[in-house]
């Protein structure tokens, strides 16, 4: 999307920030709609954005996206920057350099850059810029107390209900590194906690992390086609392998129940048929698919890779809804979790094929939302972890 000179993003918007942005960073916008508002992160920095037909214009006090091809205009909301972004923790760290809102949840990259970036030659995922981001736009390491303070500020001031921790490859100590953060947020702040780490074949570690407070796991295996997985994810191919992702996804989906675990994939690089197969697989094991539209980010190895076409992406998201419906995956049930960097399954409700099965599914979802409300209220409250500190280390 292009930005018209009328835009006053310094005053009106969240600062476009690359903190924790491996795959993409851009302008956060909200597209209002009758079913739900859609939060999205729109590329504005990359060269391809300069060729977009969409232009963001400030009109009076509101914003509109104008389509240069048809002249149509769409009202959008620009979420303002939270005040806590500019605040500092007791240790003096600027809070925005610890974590940022990506939609309505708080995202924190917990540890030093993914070790794939430090191999020689580097084995980083070709689409990613995480390694070149940590230390440049965000803190190289996150102190536990800083993380707790940022989570607390985000909960109190922005109403955050969900904290998502992610990390790159940590040579098999991925879950151990995340454990103290998970436990601290659960015990000292109170929030739903999600973790996105490299998978481990030592599946018992997931039980421990759940005991410490993890409510959600997501597994970024990116490409379903094994050739694409190997070509674009050399580190994951060499050290972990696609099968480990599948086993961890299946195990945790069984542990936490339907709709609590996600498989994250990138659409727009591998053939669309493979992406559809990925969606079928993920939903068949009780997980939900989170689909990122490929973005050739500045500085990534795939910076010059072509951007996907709208015509190819629309059927992907139609398929997300249909697959979730077919497998009875609860979508949009957790309170106040809107994700901007990926397309959430409940965003795809706009693409649902009308008919009796859709009506039944939507009715079930409505009921689930009501039933789940007190459950989530309990989960969001502060509580003592079932496992003690260092549980993962002790069993090792």
């Amino acid at each position, binding site marked *: 999307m292009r930005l018209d000179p009328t835009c006053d993003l310094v005053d009106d918007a969240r600062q*476009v920030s690359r903190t924790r942005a491996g795959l993409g*960073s851009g302008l956060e916008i909200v597209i209002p709609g009758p079913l739900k508002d859609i939060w999205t992160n729109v590329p504005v920095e990359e060269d391809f954005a300069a060729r977009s037909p969409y232009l963001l214009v400030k009109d009076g006090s509101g914003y509109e996206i104008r389509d240069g091809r048809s002249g149509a205009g769409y009202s959008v909301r620009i979420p303002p920057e939270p005040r806590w972004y500019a605040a500092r923790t007791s240790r003096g760290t600027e809070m925005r350099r610890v974590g940022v809102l990506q939609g309505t949840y708080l995202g924190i990259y917990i540890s030093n850059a993914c070790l794939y*970036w430090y191999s020689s030659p*580097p084995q*980083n995922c070709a689409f990613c*810029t995480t390694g*070149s981001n*940590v230390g*440049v736009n965000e803190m190289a390491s996150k102190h536990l107390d800083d993380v707790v303070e940022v989570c607390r500020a985000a909960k109190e001031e922005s109403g955050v209900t969900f904290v998502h921790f992610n990390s790159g490859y940590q040579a098999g100590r991925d879950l151990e590194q995340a454990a103290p953060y998970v436990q601290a947020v659960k015990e000292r702040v109170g929030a739903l906690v999600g973790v996105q780490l490299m998978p481990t074949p030592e599946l018992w570690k997931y039980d421990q992390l759940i005991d410490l407070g993890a409510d959600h796991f997501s597994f970024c295996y990116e490409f379903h086609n094994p050739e694409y997985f190997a070509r674009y994810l050399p580190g994951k191919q060499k050290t972990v392998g696609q099968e480990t992702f599948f086993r961890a996804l299946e195990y945790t989906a069984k542990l936490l129940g339907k709709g609590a675990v996600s498989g994250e994939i990138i659409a727009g690089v591998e053939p669309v048929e493979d992406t559809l197969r990925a969606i079928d697989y993920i939903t068949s094991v009780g997980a939900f698919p989170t689909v990122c539209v490929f973005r050739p980010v500045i*500085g990534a190895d795939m910076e010059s890779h072509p951007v996907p076409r709208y015509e190819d992406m629309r059927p992907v998201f139609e398929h997300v809804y249909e697959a979730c419906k077919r497998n009875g995956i609860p979508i949009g049930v957790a309170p106040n979790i809107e994700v901007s960097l990926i397309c959430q399954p409940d965003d795809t409700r706009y693409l649902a094929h009308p008919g009796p099965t859709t009506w039944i599914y939507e009715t079930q979802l409505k009921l689930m939302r009501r039933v789940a409300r007190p459950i989530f209220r309990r989960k969001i409250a502060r509580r003592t972890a079932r496992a003690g500190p260092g549980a993962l280390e002790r069993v090792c």
Partner: protein
Amino acid sequence: MLTGAADAECRAKLDRELSLNPAFASVVRAVSDAAEPFSLDPVAGGLEFASLHVATSSTSRCRMKLFRPREEKERLCAFFFKKSNIAGSRDRFSYGAVEFLPDRLGPDEIRSWIAWLASGLHPGHRPANLKRAFLYTIPE
């Protein structure tokens, strides 16, 4: 060439940084002698050179920052990045960094940095020994 090198602000910045890190002098000389135009940011931390070569839209966003990553260590660093084009954004799009010891830095190496900067940080012109990830925080 280094445009605005005679400006008082630019001069003061150069004097200050070169007194802290005299080893940067060879890079400053090479930038001044280059055919392509560069400017020096008088406010940014370290010595930050911007390419003024406007061959493509993104070339003019390319920057090279010279700094000392750790005060107690002799090792220096040339960090390459593109600046955000969004008003108010402090984001930097990293393309990597070359770490070097002052006494081992040769003119060919410096020339390769300058050529890369002027090329718009083209992947085909990456300098040797480029590191893509760091364990320290790069100053703004």
